[in-house]
């Protein structure tokens, strides 16, 4: 007969336990009932904050497919366990059900501790633990945005790991965060004073105000906002308060049932996870094991595995756990591992404080300086992955060389012994991963994840997994280039959330080396999308491809083309005449482009300003033919002239072209508007296609001509112009923020689909139904773009500094490049090419 197992709590650990049972209980000895107080099934609480970065709820879900499909596995959401009857072996739930058990597992996790501050119960005060908490914080922030003038402010009480994460979240919501920490430094549990000081310095640079060594005395309501008074007398005007002052184990249920409780809370269990009652077990953050309560997920997972083993006849025990952490807070790297605070008797410390690149590193060594015990890294945590697995092992190199900026010491993953843990969340060793790679022929990180579970926890070991793949001879990487391990979308997030404003800062903090022709233009594009400064200002100028640098497209003979904007292809006779005159006076080849405008080719660098001066005076502006930017919005003549037209396609195309001109994007963007279903503007082959209907407009997205033609997908039907434009705004902004380098919208839309998600439906949910709650942000970003747009060429002409680069030779500015010449073909100039030198052979 089946025995009944009741699990209280469906958090990360409770769920992991159920899955471990599914794997181990082959005999189907147990029937399992899980009760969860939350309304959502288990999700990735560790990645909670990514919810604010736009990660959809579905991606946070951690429940394996079909987990509760089997008859004897049941999950009840929104139903908590209120009491335990130990002698009757039953639990009573909030819905009044009484459920019998043969074994009971408590996986109730923790609750956030809210210090007894007067006012902490005011609306506007939150904790940071569940998705519901985050929804509430977001709603309050949005209310504040709607009602408060000036900068919105938030306060996070607690400067630990989670507090800093909450501060980052407030920043993403557009607030200025204050962090209040009682201890004299940030992250008091992870870093020492040296690390704390540097951390503070780096974090303050990112617009977070830090108050350490003080506490909150009171919070009062103050004319629709809140006023917080700190013990040091500081007063803060606030819109939102988030308490993040530590967590406490949720042991009330166990206390009420008379189970043993630890001196500082937590349900006392032995190394098999059994409580003082033989039939009751506790795992995860609610358990006190070996006298300790762990606030991290990895030890909880170990407990889940130990317990599943025990309940299926095994003998495993919980030993002790790795409490390493690595975070990227607001773009600042912090890592601590092992005995970070040097608590081991006789421990030695090696510290390297590097004020130049703002990094701090400390290694803790055994008293004989042979064994690594732990360490702290702030500012640059790139060594974390290779150092962490060495804890408790003999040092492979001189300790200073191991933390010195240039690396040295040969401590790459290759140097790790086979039994070193690469993934500490799931306790997976290097050997297990390498075996899985070779035995199962794995070729990517996703395959390693599903095969070994490595990388599916906090994710910090993923770069090491890549290295192991590469070491096994598998070529994989979505790193941008040798200078950045991130993708464009990741860099975009880093720049957006950290406020980094220069390439130098970005590469120093998040990359290596000096950059190249791949990452520099990507960074230039990101900065342009976010900052809207002129692309030729300061250091930004050095990042630009030659096209963006001279605001013109380079041709095969080293001359450039000039493409003024002719929105929707509509041009007055006077302007046409000017184009003809300019082309004639400068001897330029003239052609109608495939984008309904006119290209003047063959201009030398030093001629560009004079050509553009004439064009700008005549009312032309840059057409951005050189940029990864909006190109053209092609239009048919539409209802004004055409006997079939049902809407004015030209007016709309002009409006769209002027609205989106100048926006910098991962690749070029093209649009089209047709006045009726005959589709003379070929709108369905464009990134954004609009086709008029009797009732309004149909919107298509993700079309492409070019290399791999793709028809656009229908996103909206029969919408009015306002809705249409708002949706296109969001489509473009979402694309700008999340697409990869040189990814057109066609492949971006395709990439939004995966095994269990339709990309188009997802896109519609995000930009039409606002499922991620980012629509207001996208709208604001696009409005900002339209407000700050200015013609790049007009700005260059007005500025002698920017103009000064348009010279042929630095020592002979007006001498034309002698290698450029033309012959005449069909009455127009055509370039005479210089043949390359006979290729010189080296040495």
């Amino acid at each position, binding site marked *: 007969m089946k025995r009944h197992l009741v699990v209280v709590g469906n958090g990360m650990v409770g769920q992991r336990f159920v899955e471990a049972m599914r794997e181990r209980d082959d005999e189907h000895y147990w029937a399992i009932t899980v009760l969860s107080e939350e309304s959502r099934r288990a999700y990735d609480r560790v990645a909670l904050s990514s919810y604010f970065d736009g990660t959809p709820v579905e991606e946070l879900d951690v429940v394996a497919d079909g987990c509760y499909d089997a008859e004897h596995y049941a999950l009840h959401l929104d139903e908590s366990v209120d009491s335990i009857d130990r002698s009757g072996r039953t639990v009573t739930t909030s819905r009044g059900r009484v459920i019998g058990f043969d074994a009971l597992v408590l996986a109730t996790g923790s609750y956030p501790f809210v210090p007894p501050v007067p006012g902490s119960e005011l609306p506007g005060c939150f904790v940071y633990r569940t998705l519901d908490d985050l929804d509430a914080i977001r709603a309050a922030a949005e209310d504040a945005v709607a009602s408060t003038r000036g900068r919105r402010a938030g306060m996070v009480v607690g400067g630990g790991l989670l507090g800093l994460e909450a501060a980052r979240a407030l920043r993403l919501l557009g607030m200025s965060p204050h962090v209040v920490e009682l201890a004299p430094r940030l992250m008091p549990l992870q870093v020492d004073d040296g690390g704390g000081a540097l951390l503070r310095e780096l974090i303050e640079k990112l617009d977070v105000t830090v108050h350490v060594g003080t506490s909150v005395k009171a919070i009062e309501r103050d004319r629709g906002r809140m006023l917080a008074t700190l013990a040091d007398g500081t007063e803060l005007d606030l819109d939102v308060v988030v308490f993040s002052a530590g967590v406490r184990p949720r042991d009330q249920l166990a206390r009420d049932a008379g189970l043993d409780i630890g001196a500082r809370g937590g349900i006392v269990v032995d190394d098999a996870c059994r409580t003082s009652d033989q039939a009751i077990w506790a795992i995860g953050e609610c358990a006190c094991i070996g006298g300790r309560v762990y606030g991290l997920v990895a030890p909880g997972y170990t407990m889940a595995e130990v317990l599943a083993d025990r309940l299926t006849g095994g003998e495993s025990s919980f030993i002790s756990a790795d409490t390493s952490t690595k975070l990227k807070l607001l773009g600042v790297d912090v890592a601590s591992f092992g005995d970070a605070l040097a608590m081991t008797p006789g421990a030695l410390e090696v510290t390297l404080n590097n004020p130049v690149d703002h990094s701090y590193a400390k290694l803790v060594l055994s008293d004989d300086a042979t064994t690594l015990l732990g360490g702290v890294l702030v500012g640059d945590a790139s060594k974390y992955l290779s150092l962490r697995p060495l804890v408790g092992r003999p040092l492979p190199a001189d300790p200073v060389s191991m933390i010195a900026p240039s690396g040295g010491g040969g401590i790459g993953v290759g140097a790790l012994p086979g039994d070193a843990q690469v993934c500490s969340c799931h306790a997976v060793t290097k050997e297990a991963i390498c075996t899985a790679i070779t035995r199962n022929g794995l070729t990517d990180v996703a395959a390693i994840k599903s095969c070994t579970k490595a990388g599916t926890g906090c994710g910090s070991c993923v770069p090491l997994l890549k290295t192991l793949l590469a070491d096994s001879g598998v070529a994989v990487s979505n790193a941008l280039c040798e200078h950045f391990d991130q993708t464009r979308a990741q860099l975009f997030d880093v720049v957006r959330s950290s406020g980094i404003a220069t390439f*130098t800062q970005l590469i120093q903090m998040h990359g290596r080396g000096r*950059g*190249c*022709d791949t990452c520099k233009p990507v960074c230039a594009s990101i900065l342009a999308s976010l900052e809207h400064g002129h692309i030729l200002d300061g250091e930004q100028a050095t990042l*630009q491809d*030659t096209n963006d640098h001279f605001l013109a497209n380079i041709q*095969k003979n080293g001359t450039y083309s000039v493409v003024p904007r002719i929105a929707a292809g509509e041009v007055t006779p006077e302007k046409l005449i000017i184009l003809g005159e300019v082309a004639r006076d400068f001897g330029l080849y003239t052609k109608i482009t495939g984008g309904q405008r006119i290209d003047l080719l063959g201009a030398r660098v030093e001629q560009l300003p004079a050509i553009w001066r004439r064009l700008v005076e005549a009312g032309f502006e840059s057409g951005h033919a050189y940029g990864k930017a909006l190109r053209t919005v092609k239009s048919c003549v539409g209802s004004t002239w055409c006997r079939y037209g049902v809407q004015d396609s030209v007016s709309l195309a002009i409006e769209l072209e002027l609205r989106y001109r100048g926006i910098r994007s991962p690749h070029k963007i093209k649009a089209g508007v047709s006045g009726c279903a005959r589709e003379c503007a070929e709108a369905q082959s464009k990134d954004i296609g609009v086709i008029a209907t009797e009732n309004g407009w149909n919107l298509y997205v993700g079309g492409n001509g070019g290399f791999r033609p793709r028809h656009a997908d229908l996103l909206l039907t029969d919408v009015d112009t306002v809705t249409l434009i708002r949706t296109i705004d969001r489509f473009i902004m979402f694309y700008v923020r999340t697409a990869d380098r040189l990814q057109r919208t066609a492949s971006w839309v395709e990439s939004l689909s995966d095994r269990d998600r339709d990309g188009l439906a997802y896109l519609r949910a995000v930009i039409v139904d606002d499922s991620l709650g980012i629509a207001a942000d996208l709208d604001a970003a696009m409005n900002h773009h339209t407000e700050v747009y200015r013609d790049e060429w007009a700005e260059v002409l007005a500025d002698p500094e920017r103009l000064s680069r348009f010279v042929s*030779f630095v020592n002979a500015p007006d001498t034309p490049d002698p290698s450029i010449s033309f012959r005449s073909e069909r009455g127009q100039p055509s370039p005479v*090419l210089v043949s390359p030198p006979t290729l010189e052979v*080296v040495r």
Partner: protein
Amino acid sequence: MSAVGVEWTPVCRLDDLQPERGVAALVDGVQMAVFRTFNDELHAVGNQDPFTGAFVISRGIVGSRGDAATVASPLHKQVFDLATGVCLDDESVRVPVYPIRARDGVVELALR
């Protein structure tokens, strides 16, 4: 390089060179691409792209590959080592390297 017999031509002030960006210079009819890197090293290489024949190397993006300071041709993006002129994507190809120095804030080039 030995100073003996080298004839230096001043081309511009050091301040005229933006770090990490190139300019072209014309010395006795020879086109050179002149670069100042972030750490104020100066490099001069031939301005002609050996792959296409166009005189455009000075307009490429400056960067690094491994430890080498580099420039990428703006036409088809082949990368050249600024110190040796060798093309790192095809080591059988290279651009000439010219002597360069800064004296009293003035950049000088020589034809070797």
